[in-house]
């Protein structure tokens, strides 16, 4: 414990502080019923998305289907079968992966674009801010879903439906991109308003006096201070991304070879499941969608309250 070790002490002290903060945060977050319930639901679905094979075996295909056409639930197929005899439990569980993956990727894109534009716009200000925010307002107001209806098929045709990017089929990538570019605006708005208030704080001025460049200030001083906001927002964005993916798939923009919940509902509609009384074709994917969106909304709300107590309810 010589004097030379003092910086280390400072660091461990800081780490300890941070660990305590995290613990306190976790305790506060999990003590809220909405945070706890939401998190539990999400953990379950995350596990299903990561390893669906563990629970229901490999994805059933047309030739490996094990049931009869549109058979009601039986002990062997506890959620019944679809119109090709595929087990719906199997399909629903495997659908988790595509739905969650698309939601995740779309959230990453949305939040990345939104945060970047929000921070830059709020920090740089002036004409750039005005232009960027007009642009954000434009996207905020736009019925982006209808825009997505036009963009998705055009992009698919332009890129070429056969190509794969990062091992994902283009149809899926296009859905991700379309969700991303049509929903970043509200994130940008929220991040910008926080940046605006941070910009006037003393520590930013100090950094500027020391000679730090704009990029450095944004990265070192602004970003860490808006990260709470971004995280809470990201969770809510995730919820709406899952909803959008579901809706796009439902109206026929999904990839017929990679089951997602929206796609299952699309098949159910196409097979006339409701009229045939095949409720087991509709209820499982519908329940999953509601549960996941609900869970994200609960967690997002709880996070928002815990992380940004002062901002609660403000937009």
């Amino acid at each position, binding site marked *: 414990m010589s004097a030379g070790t003092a910086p280390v002490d400072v660091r461990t002290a800081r780490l300890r502080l941070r660990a305590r903060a995290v613990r306190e945060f976790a305790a506060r977050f999990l003590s809220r019923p909405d945070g706890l319930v939401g998190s539990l639901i999400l953990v379950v679905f995350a596990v299903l998305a990561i390893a669906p094979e563990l629970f229901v075996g490999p994805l059933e*295909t*047309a*030739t*490996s*289907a094990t049931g009869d*056409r*549109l058979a009601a639930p039986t002990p062997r197929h506890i959620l019944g079968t679809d*119109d*090709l*005899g595929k087990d719906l439990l199997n399909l629903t569980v495997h659908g988790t992966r595509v739905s969650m993956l698309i939601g995740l990727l779309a959230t990453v894109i949305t939040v990345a674009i939104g945060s970047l534009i929000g921070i830059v716009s709020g920090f740089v200000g002036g004409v750039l801010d005005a232009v960027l925010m007009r642009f954000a307002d434009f996207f905020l107001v736009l019925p982006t879903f209808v825009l997505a209806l036009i963009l998705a*098929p055009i992009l698919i*045709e332009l890129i070429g*439906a*056969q190509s794969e990017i990062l091992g994902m089929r283009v149809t899926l990538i296009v859905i991700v991109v379309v969700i991303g570019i049509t929903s970043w605006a509200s994130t940008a708005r929220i991040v910008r308003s926080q940046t605006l208030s941070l910009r006037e704080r003393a520590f930013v001025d100090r950094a500027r006096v020391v000679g730090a460049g704009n990029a450095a200030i944004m990265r070192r001083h602004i970003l860490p201070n808006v990260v709470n906001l971004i995280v809470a927002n990201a969770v809510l964005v995730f919820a709406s991304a899952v909803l959008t993916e579901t809706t796009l798939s439902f109206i*026929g923009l999904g990839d*017929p*070879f990679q089951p997602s919940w929206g796609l299952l509902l699309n098949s159910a*509609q*196409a*097979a*006339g*499941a*409701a*009229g*045939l009384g095949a409720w087991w074709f509709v209820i499982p994917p519908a329940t999953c969608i509601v549960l996941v969106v609900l869970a994200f909304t609960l967690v997002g709300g709880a996070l928002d309250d815990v992380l940004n107590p002062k901002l609660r309810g403000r937009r």
Partner: protein
Amino acid sequence: MVVAHRRRVGRVLAAFGVLAALLLPAVPVAAQEPLVLRVGTTQDLDSMNPWGTALTVGFEAYTLNYETIAYWDENLAPMPAFAESWEESEDGLTWTFTISPDKKWSDGTPATAEDARWTYQLVLDALAAETSVGLGYIDYYLGDAGVTAVSAPDSQTFVVEVSAPTTRLIPNYVPILPKHIWEGQTLDTIGDFQNEPPVVGSGPYQAVEWQIGQSVRFVRNEHFTGRQGAADEVIIQFYANAVDTMVQALQNGELDYARAVLPDQFNQLTGQPNIVTVAGTTNGFTELGFNTYGTGTGKTIPNGGPSTPALLDAAFRDALGYAIDKELLVERILGGYGEVGTTQVPPFQTAWHTPPATPRTFDMELARQKLDAAGYVLNDAGARLDKDGNPIVLELVFPDSEETFAQAAEFVADWFGQLGIVVNSQQYDQDTLIDKMLPPEAGEEYTADYDLFIWSWGGDVDPNSLLSIFKCDEIGASSDSMYCNPRYDELYALQNATSDPAERKRYMDEMQAIIYDDAPYHILFYDAQLDAYRTDRFGGWQNQPSNGVPLFVYGPLDYTLLTAAEPSPEPSQPAGSPSAGAATPAPSPGAEPTASGGDSTLLIVGVLAVVAILAVGLVLFRRRGPTTEEE
């Protein structure tokens, strides 16, 4: 206070009524209820112009609007339509049609031989200029019949000259158009002509109102000279992407006829009271096709064409045929309603269909052996290689128009995958797919960029249309396999030229064998046409032909045969409806068939519920303060 609230509710109701009145077309309260035939289809009419549609519903609409020179009877033989009679000359080169002097267009102007001459001449002009009338789906009937000239020596006589004796002239699908409406159109403009209702024609029913994407309404043509059906009006209702809704509407009595229901729905409908289901044999098939571009010609397409030369090898295609379990497809995809596919002439053509002498069976092991024997071996990674040593990866494309294509694609990709052949499937909308599949012969921008496809064909009364798609000169037009075989072309010409059925059959046998063995197509199945209709409002349903279905077949035959059904013995008529019971559709489609007087009660409950929500909301909103203040 209470009065004020009630008035508010009243106002809401009134606003509701005004809005609804704005929205709804005024329906005159007719003294005599018209008898309306209501027909549902999952297709969506794309054009009222006969030259602008390729859909079954489009053909149905225009053959109701317009007569062809002859119609098809229940055995698909010609029967009088625009012409009341006809005569073939001794040498078979001149056909003389007689048009009734009483014939009138629906607007009352006389319909004469000149109208027929003008319409046929238009098609002949297009053929001569090597272009087409509109989309070009109708022109070839006159081309195949070998029509060389048409004339109208007087208003009752229409003369058609052909290059050789033919059985293909009548009936044909060329609609006879009223010259006085259409004569301003040229070949360049006629495809864009909207032909907005009310349509003037000479068919049994004339379109008077087309709500795009929803329905088209026809009324009886009082001037129609043929047999008149019982329906005063015909409404064709479109259920695009809503087959479930259509079936429900049929069950509820909102529809009299539903075309193309799904197998499970068909089973559900079968045996229900007042509903008859009919599984018609269709004159068509669904196929798995190969892009064989360059077969026989050695031509290639830069940045396009088949991805591997293996596709041009008949032995390769033959071997893959053993990896397709067609029986499973019929069972799983069609629910058993169809037949295993074999040749390009469907069994519907009882006179011409010849099953293959040695049909392929489903045998994965045999498929592997045949591939190995043909020189397509597996590498260490389990991938099947072509003769250049490249792994075979095939692009399978199909349109999104029918669910069965995607389902079949899933099976095919699975089976071929088990052979070590990777199949990437992709669904396209029909127009995009046509553009993707066209070869350079259709225009320099096209590249025929695909390997496999799943699609279907529907044929004419004459097998020519389904035979012609494998002709060399159809590459760039209707050929989607890009198959070319001079012997096949020769046989096509021979069978078309002969007037001896036995001889024609012999040629056709060979043509069917060639396509089955060479396998540019593996015809997966002949799917049945699953239709259903109600018998409580109309009788006289007549399949056309006897193994077919009543409507959406060949011309408007059954529309003219329908009779009004006897008033239903069931007490399903709500009180207060006119005595012509069968003429009035049940006002409440949602009610159970057995429910009678309760119908309107339910409706009122529904309306009241909506109003109640509004009212309660308003009250809550207004009265929140006072109630809480008491606490």
